[in-house]
């Protein structure tokens, strides 16, 4: 589990550093935002169906609803701005990290599943917030895209706090 956190952290940091040097353009930022949300929706769907813990299922449902809402806004905005999201190293590493997380979770059950899912959610939201603060928000050229990122940032903060709140009681269970 810890290793997965490190993998996400490393891949995001590496791509964050690379993106910061060149600066992702708005089309790349759009792809990063959409992928980041989609990865968390997919993990949430798996957890909502597989977990038997009320708090974990509720958290997973919140992730699905909120990140779907954010993605809807993002897609509406890029459509309006006539920007086509453009794949880039950061969006690709988010996607592969998400796929790896799903593969790992699918092999687990019970308390081990809950713990792995929630631990990953904590690490994931920390890394996405870091990318938002250091790359995405400062890098967005279009003011509406920047405004959308600023607007949804508190949701990621609330999700991180929520994940940490349910993480503590799960720690001793697996």
């Amino acid at each position, binding site marked *: 589990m810890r290793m997965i956190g490190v993998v996400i952290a490393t891949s995001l940091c590496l791509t964050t550093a690379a993106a910061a040097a060149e600066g992702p353009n708005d089309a790349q930022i759009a792809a990063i935002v959409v992928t980041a949300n989609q990865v968390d929706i997919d993990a949430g769907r798996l957890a909502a169906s597989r977990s038997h813990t009320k708090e974990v299922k509720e958290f997973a449902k*919140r992730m699905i*609803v*909120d990140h*779907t*809402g*954010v993605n*809807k*806004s993002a897609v509406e905005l890029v459509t309006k701005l006539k920007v086509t999201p453009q794949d880039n190293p950061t969006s690709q590493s988010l996607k592969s990290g998400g796929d790896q997380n799903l593969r790992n979770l699918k092999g687990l059950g019970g308390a081990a599943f809950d713990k792995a899912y929630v631990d990953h959610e904590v690490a994931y939201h920390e890394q996405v917030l870091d990318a938002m603060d250091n790359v995405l928000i400062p890098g967005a050229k279009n003011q509406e895209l920047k405004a959308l990122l*600023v*607007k*949804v*940032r*508190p*949701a990621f*903060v*609330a999700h991180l*706090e*929520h994940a940490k709140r349910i993480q503590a009681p799960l720690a001793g269970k697996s």
Partner: protein
Amino acid sequence: MTRASVRRFLIALATASTLCLLLSDTGAAATAGPRPTTHRVVIDSLRFDPQLLTVKAGDTIVWVNHDPFPHTVTAEGKSFDSHEIAPGQSWKYTARKAGEFAYACMLHPTMKATLRVE
């Protein structure tokens, strides 16, 4: 006067006096105090704005959700509860009881605010 015309007269009299009563009633209500007003609280970026709203008993408050996901407006002790307010939708509540009501979003408990009813 025939019996029928007496009856018509009495009905007309009764209707007129009822109308007078109704009219004087609404007149009295209109002059009894300030008219209830409607206040607006915007929900945006996981924040209720204003954080503290003071209203008079009888006033109506409308919470408007500007976020792309649902929120709730739920008082501690559930004296009022909007349940889920969908993105772009609003919820209306008429405050009848005086007091200070702390409320939060049940879906995002870090979102807190206060309604003060005087």
